[in-house]
């Protein structure tokens, strides 16, 4: 309860600012329309109009809420107009991509920490890989994968994995290197193998870093899945909803899809946070 109050307060403030911004940004259109129709409008009329435009520059919060509600609960979950349906499509690609991405990220980090050649050569290229605009190569990835017969969920998951492995690599490398000299020396005196040092020292020491990275990487996975949906022929998924909304100037639809995506991401991050809490508590790392 204590943690809900501040969130509510902040949300309230945001909604208030949002309404004011909506009135300001949407009023231009109202005034323009009035000018075109050669009529005068009072401020009250403007406010009313800005709350209910069909293509607002910034939809009012309640418009988005209604759009979201309709999308989520306004129809059967299996309907193509349901955000639940599209959310599920995106979610499945996200989860597969996240699994591939984090797995790869952890493997790479382990390699980088244990192998000097990898440390020196892989890291700069992992960084370079992230500066490649994914939106540019996503279509090519889809095309290339399609030409070798891979279609459907997997191409999207590949793109999502591409975005999500990097935060894991960076965080895990830092985490696996976080043990201090004494902690490492202790194991040296036991002549512990690298394997034992990894399991008993480096891995546990890296847990807080891992979880922090997983949260970032989960969000990245979702973005990846959405990006992957754009060139997949704008068929289904939240990305497709965003795109078609954008294509038809359906601002409210965009915002609803956007919020659905964010809710999904937030939910996934919360799940990771919960796992983190349990894991770290069991490891005695939260006091």
């Amino acid at each position, binding site marked *: 309860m204590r*943690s809900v*109050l*501040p*969130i*509510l*307060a*902040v*949300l309230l403030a*945001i909604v208030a600012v949002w309404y004011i911004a909506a009135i300001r940004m949407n009023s231009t259109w109202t005034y323009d329309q009035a000018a075109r129709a050669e009529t005068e409008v009072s401020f009250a009329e403007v406010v009313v109009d800005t709350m209910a435009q069909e293509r607002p*520059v*910034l939809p009012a919060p309640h418009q988005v809420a209604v759009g979201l509600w309709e999308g989520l609960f306004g129809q059967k979950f299996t309907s193509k107009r349901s955000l639940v349906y599209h959310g599920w499509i995106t979610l499945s690609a996200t989860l597969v991509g996240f699994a591939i991405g984090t797995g790869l990220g952890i493997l790479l980090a382990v390699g980088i920490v244990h*192998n*000097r*050649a990898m*440390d*020196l*050569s*892989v890291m*700069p*290229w992992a*960084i*370079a890989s*992230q*500066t*490649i*605009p*994914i*939106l*540019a190569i996503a*279509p*090519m990835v889809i*095309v290339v994968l399609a*030409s070798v017969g891979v279609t459907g969920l997997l191409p999207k998951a590949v793109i999502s994995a591409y975005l999500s492995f990097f*935060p894991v690599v*960076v*965080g895990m490398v*830092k985490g696996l*290197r*976080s*043990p*201090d*000299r004494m902690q490492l020396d202790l194991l040296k005196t036991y002549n512990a193998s690298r394997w034992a040092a990894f399991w008993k020292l480096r891995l546990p020491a890296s847990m807080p870093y891992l979880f922090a990275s997983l949260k*970032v990487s989960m969000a990245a996975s*979702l*973005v990846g899945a*959405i990006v992957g949906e*754009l060139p997949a022929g704008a068929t289904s998924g939240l*990305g497709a909803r*965003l795109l078609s909304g*954008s294509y038809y100037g359906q*601002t409210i639809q*965009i915002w609803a899809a*956007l*919020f659905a*995506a*964010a*809710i*999904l*991401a*937030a939910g996934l991050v919360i799940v990771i946070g919960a796992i983190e809490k349990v894991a770290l508590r069991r490891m005695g790392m939260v006091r």
Partner: protein
Amino acid sequence: MTWLWGAILFWLGAWGLNAWAANQPFARTRAGKLAIPALFGVTLLVLWEGIVRGLDVPGVILPAPSVIWGTITTSVPTLWQDFVQTILKGGLSGYVIGCGAAIATAIAIDRSPFLQKGLLPVGNFVAALPIVGIAPILVMWFGFDWQSKAAVVVVMVFFPVLVNTVAGLAATDRMQRDLMATYSASYWQTLMKLRLPAAMPFIFNGLKIATTLALIGAIVAEFFGSPIKGMGFRISTAVGQLALDMVWAEIAVAALAGSAFYGLVALIEKGVTFWHPSQRARS
């Protein structure tokens, strides 16, 4: 096919060489730290060239590195113009504003657990909004030129830096804080002398992640409307024209600029957080 096998052989050989070189004293010198990743890169390029030639991959699917290099050398003015538009104007200004705002916000909400408890989850939520959704909106709000790209970058880098800074500000150990308490140091003194220095490794973590985000953000935002220059513009039109060599030329510039940007921030980090075990271990 000879190309393909040749490339694979070269790759194996170079990997062996690299693995050997990495364990030589040479690898600890400055030259070694550049040469080894460079050799790795060359290996990748040779492999790429070999695959494209060996398997006869059409140029409209994936051009060979040699072809891309040819395009780079002949289109320097275009590439430079796009670089200035996207990276210097859109990316860099957004990065500076976004990171600055994030650090300032972290410090601002640091005093109020109430705001932290309220803002962090909400911020978390906002950060989860995919850029592909935000970019068109910001283009609608801030116009077609680089300002809207900077806005996208601000939104993208803000949260990672905020979260890292907040985590960093909390990263002092009990004794360090108690020490300040016994001096009855003011909030600002504790901040400047203890918490910010202790937070630096975390802040730089955020700043490093933000470099790559800034680049992607600036480029991707151009897909949603732009003047007729910029790296994102060039990439998206070039794909439509099947000028894949140009696409990859731009990607090469982006990767190079991104790595340089990241390297610069990492270098500054090394200077600022020289005391952190993760920096000391390798020096």
